[in-house]
């Protein structure tokens, strides 16, 4: 078992009567790209604010590389953060903000920073007051990726970026991963999470409902199968792993498959299969299955 980049134990946060985060216990090993998924209001930003010491937990604790998260001076030497909505001093230029963040931050690779400025096509000579939401986000992203801090905490960092910049973002996450940096990426964009994350945690109404690798998450869930037959379809009732069986016309059956497909494949092999379509559910469908009714 390697070291943890980020660890929480029974972390909770209450705002008045609202339990924004309920008993979160999580461990993100160093070097992992971890996706923190949840719809708006699930408690993602709250979690991150607790991890950063910007808000105080109602109960529970958190660690950044075995430093208590409350010990900000030490913990923040090993992380960089991109907030969900970036606010800057309007009269400072982008370059000045980057300079400030580099000089008070945990150490910056200025050559890489300049490269990132190019890649994200940010005009850093303009005053921040003239920047769009996306441009402000770019400033924070460039500052964070350029730190090479061992942990990057990103809170919905691409909500203001266009698709081209989103691509640059994914590349930068890839570079960070190759450098051995840990990335904690809060998001509600599944395609993004699917593209860059090793593992995801799913948060619903302040509770962690699942932690799994993206592949596992799919495997845990159903595979959809539709098969047509030249002759009479076989009776698959009671075959191991087959659920939701229904006939679709005389020659087609549809069902969903859970777990090992061996038994179902044997049963199909005995019949004259004309076509077969096997489809994994998308992360989106899995996500919707989690949030079905009472999503918050």
């Amino acid at each position, binding site marked *: 078992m390697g070291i943890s980049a980020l660890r929480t134990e029974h972390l909770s946060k209450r705002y008045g009567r609202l339990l924004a985060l309920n008993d979160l216990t999580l461990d993100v090993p160093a070097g992992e790209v971890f996706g923190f998924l949840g719809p708006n209001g699930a408690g993602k930003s709250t979690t991150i*604010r607790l991890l*950063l*010491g*910007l*808000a*105080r937990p109602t109960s529970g604790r958190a660690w950044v590389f075995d430093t208590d998260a409350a010990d*900000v*001076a*030490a913990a*923040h*030497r090993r*992380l*960089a*953060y991109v*907030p969900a*909505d*970036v*606010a*800057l*001093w*309007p*009269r400072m*230029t982008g*370059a*000045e*903000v980057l*300079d*400030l*963040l580099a*000089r*008070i*931050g*945990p150490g910056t690779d200025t050559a890489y920073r300049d490269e990132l400025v190019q890649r994200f096509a940010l*005009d*850093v*000579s*303009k*005053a921040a*007051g*003239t920047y769009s939401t996306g441009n402000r986000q770019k400033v*924070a992203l460039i*500052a964070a990726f350029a730190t090479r801090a061992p942990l990057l905490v990103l809170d919905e960092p691409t909500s203001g970026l266009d698709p081209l910049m989103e691509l640059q973002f994914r590349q930068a996450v890839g570079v960070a991963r190759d450098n051995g940096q840990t990335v904690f990426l809060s998001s509600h964009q599944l395609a993004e999470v699917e593209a860059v994350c090793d593992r995801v945690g799913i948060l619903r109404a302040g509770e962690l409902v699942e932690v799994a690798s993206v592949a596992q998450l799919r495997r845990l869930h159903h595979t959809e199968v539709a098969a047509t037959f030249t002759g009479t379809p076989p009776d698959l009732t009671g075959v191991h792993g087959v659920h939701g069986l229904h006939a679709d016309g005389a020659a087609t059956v549809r069902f969903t498959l859970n777990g090992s497909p061996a038994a179902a494949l044997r049963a199909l092999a005995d019949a004259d299969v004309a076509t077969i379509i096997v489809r994994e559910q998308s992360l989106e469908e899995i996500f919707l299955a989690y949030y079905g009714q009472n999503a918050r």
Partner: protein
Amino acid sequence: MIATMAAAARPEHVLRGLAVRQVRRGALVVTAVCAGMSALVVAGYHSEALDPAALAALASNPAIRTLFGEPVALDHAGGFTVWRTGTVLAVLLGVWAMLAASRTTRGEEDAGRWGLLLSGRITLAEAVRQHLGVLAVVPVLVGAATAAAMIAAGVDATGSLLHGTGLAAVGLFFVAVGGVTAQLFVSRSAANGAAAAVLVVGLLTRMVGDGAPALAWLRWLSPFGLLALTRPFDSNRGLPVSLLAVAAVLLLALAGRLAARRDVGAAILATPGSRPARTALLGSVPAFAVRRTVRPLVAWSAGIGAYFLLLGLIARSMTEFLTGNPEFAAMAAQAGFPALGTVEGYAATLYALLAVPAGVFVAVRLAAVAADENARRLTLLLAAPVTRLRLLAAEAAVAGCAALFLITVAGIAMWAGTATVHAGLSAGDALAGAWNVVPVMLLCLGAAALALGWTPRAVAAIGALPAAGGFMWQVTADSIGAPSWIRALSPFAHLAAVPATAPAGVAASVMAGIAAAGVVAGTVGYRRRDLSA
């Protein structure tokens, strides 16, 4: 059908409701202070037989006129009250009005809270107009309450109503000025700075216009000059106040027009497209605090410096006049200005006033930290290896040092003025007199830090309380001859008249101790609480 109509009637209501909620508490306080103080001074007035020749001498002395405005109807409770409280209350109302105007418009926009509001059917211009419209009601209430309070306390209705109208017009004018500067500048601090410059220039123009007969026309260009020109309880002129009201209405309309011509989050005065980076003072948290303080400090120093230079220039004329007319020395003492007869006494009395701007300055600087937090600008700093303790310590230390600088500038400016007219104030005495107000400034720093830790939305008000509130407390207590324990509640009661007398070491230490306790308690709160937004 009904639902659509209800929905159509809604936006203005929503906007007005929003505006009312943001200003009602401050409006109540300002109204209570203006009405209460006016009534108390009317009630506490006891007339002294003044001989007409002496009164004429008083009214024509340039120094008296510069400092206090043209003395009119001093033999009347109403006239005395206007003379004693008029400028103070007009400045209080004006400052509140312009700050409230920029806070509720540019400030809300800055903090991103208008994004949702303006994504609907409401236009930016409409939002600005509604907010300023609600705010414009406040000065009218203040004026009405003041007039009613004075009438109730037993002076003429005409003079009281005119004075109330004058106050209302000044308040309205500064609502409009705040509204216009909030459209012109992209940041709230720049808008406030520009509006404050209008206020200070208005005050100085009034002083010069009153002091130099050849420049008397200048008073027509200043809101405070126009207020004085109405001469309530004397000739009761309506024209100046009407002019001021018209100017205010025109400026209000201009604010609406300007809002219609700009984008959300942008300003009429465009920020320059591109410029080379200025990387000085970005290396550490304290350096960055200095960087953000330099610009306001320069502006404040210019305003305060000019004011105290002017006070220095009239020092000799004032002291000579009071030595020659002892009956007015007694009267000045009743008005809270004892010992104006010697240059040291004069300096001591006027340096005490310096505590007000110095205290307000530190309060405003820490309020800027709260505003940065509220607008989420501090998030990136505090995500760096920077503890809240270090941030607060840096900001408080820089604000305190900047206030010391400001106090020193005032000390030197008044000394330069007195030296120009050979009034005989030594540089050492000047600096000692200026530095004498440091404990009150520290009290403000302590109060502001305390507020930052526990009620970050009220930093400016609570921080300014020891200086601005203490000053008005003392003025009122002096005017009504309140018992000494009531006077003692104001920190000004504990300032020795330096350089006329030796500094009050014990009182200064006690004030510094209270300030330190405030800073410590504020730090505890600041470290424990959640950061807002």
